[in-house]
Each structure stands twice: as C-alpha cells, then as structure tokens.
C-alpha cells in the first residue's frame, strides 16, 4: 500500500497534509462525509503538532486486513502533553483555545491511540475503516 512521510512544520504544511489525506481517502473509496471527517481530524492534529509540538511529521497510508481503511500517524518531539487525561476529555487548552482538537479528532475517527511523554514528544495514530 502507498505510504508517504510528510513534514508538518508550519501552516502551509497543514494545508498540504490535509489535502494529501483527502485525496488518499477519496481514492480509497470513502464518501464525502468520511472524507470531511478524516480531513478535519488531520487538520486538528497537524495544527497541534505545529503549535504545541514544535513541528513533526505525518505518515498517511491505506491499510488492509479483513477490511480496508486509512491510517494516519503524527509524530513530534515536542514537550509532550502534560495532562493527557484532561487534554483528551476536551475543553482543556493550555493556549486559550477551545480545546476540541484532540477530543474532536478522536470522535471523528474509528480508532485513536496516543502516546505522549514529557520532554520526549507525542505520537497520535488514527484510523478509519471503510464500511
């Protein structure tokens, strides 16, 4: 399956990464609404990587076992998320935001895994399956 690692370092990367994700999702057969969900989740996590994580990278690929889907992995080596539990609950932001990026991305996708450790960075894996 196709796999690409793209930089997520600045604002224009956010735009190119989400349009890359949208194209891959469309080609994989996702409908308009799922394309929108996937692209929005990508946008939130990419912005987090840029704004909070000091920049990172993303891998976007189609996956297949008994079903077909899309997998997106964000990695950064920023400060990590200090209070992960709170950040995942939503409404929590250390920068005066709405605090809906993480919790929202989780709701929009089928699977969501996050590992984050202080001083080492953050990895977020999201997946969506074709129904």
């Amino acid at each position, binding site marked *: 399956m196709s796999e690409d690692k793209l930089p997520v370092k600045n604002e*224009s990367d956010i735009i190119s990464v*989400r349009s890359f994700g949208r194209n891959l999702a469309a080609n994989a057969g996702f409908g308009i*609404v799922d394309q929108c*969900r996937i*692209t*929005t989740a990508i946008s939130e996590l990419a912005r987090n990587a840029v704004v909070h994580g000091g920049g990172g990278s993303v891998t976007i690929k189609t996956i297949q076992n008994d079903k077909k889907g899309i997998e997106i992995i964000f990695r950064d080596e920023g400060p990590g998320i200090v209070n992960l539990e709170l950040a995942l609950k*939503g409404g929590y932001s250390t920068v005066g935001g709405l605090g809906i990026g993480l919790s929202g991305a989780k709701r929009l996708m089928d699977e969501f895994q996050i590992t984050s450790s202080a001083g080492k960075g953050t990895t977020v894996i999201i997946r969506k399956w074709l129904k």
Partner: protein
Amino acid sequence: MEIPILKIEDFLIVSFQTELSDDEIDKLREDILDKIKETNARGLIIDITALKIVDSFMARSLSSIATTATLLGAKTVVVGMQPAVALTLVELGLRIKWNIQTALNLERGINLLREALKSEKDVVYE
C-alpha cells in the same frame, strides 16, 4: 492571496475561495473589519460554499469575525456551509460555542439581511 470584499446595497459579501492558511484567515479578518468601518456597512455575508472543511481554527475565526462585525454595527450571516462540513463540525464538538447566524445559500442570506435591516429602519422612522 487577495480575497475580494464586495459591497452590495448596505452590506459586504466575502467569499472564502480556497483553503486558507491560518495567517491568511487572520489577515482577511482584519481586511473585513477595516472595510466595515470604511464603508459603514450594516451587514456582512461570509460565503463558505467553497470550503471543504471547517476545522476548529476556521470555526473560531468565523465566530470572532461575526462577533466583532456585529459590534461594529454589521449583522453577520454565514452562508453555504456544505452538509458534510456541518455534520463534521457537530461531531467535532463545536455545538457548545457555535453562535453564528447561518443561511443555506447566498440568496437566502441576502434576503435575511435585507429583512433584518428593513425592520431596523422601520423602527427608526416610525
């Protein structure tokens, strides 16, 4: 990228044409607010028909443009949100803070503003 701000009757119309970067959105907000002051517009229509997604940043920007424009005396209507975008916004969790007047399309947005401005005038002249 220069995004045109059109003036029709008493109000301004801005169409978000492509996917804007965060910086471009911030700049557009300044331009819109300047233009409202400059023209004394009493209404503002933001057309987002062309936007394929609205993420939390864009949503926050729309909301802040609408709030500020209203304070400056321009009633704001956001028109043309795609159904998939609306659905995704609700799932994202935005319903809590979403306080913008919306209309299905440009035509309805214009009518809505005309009506709103007309009834304001009626009150003044009665």
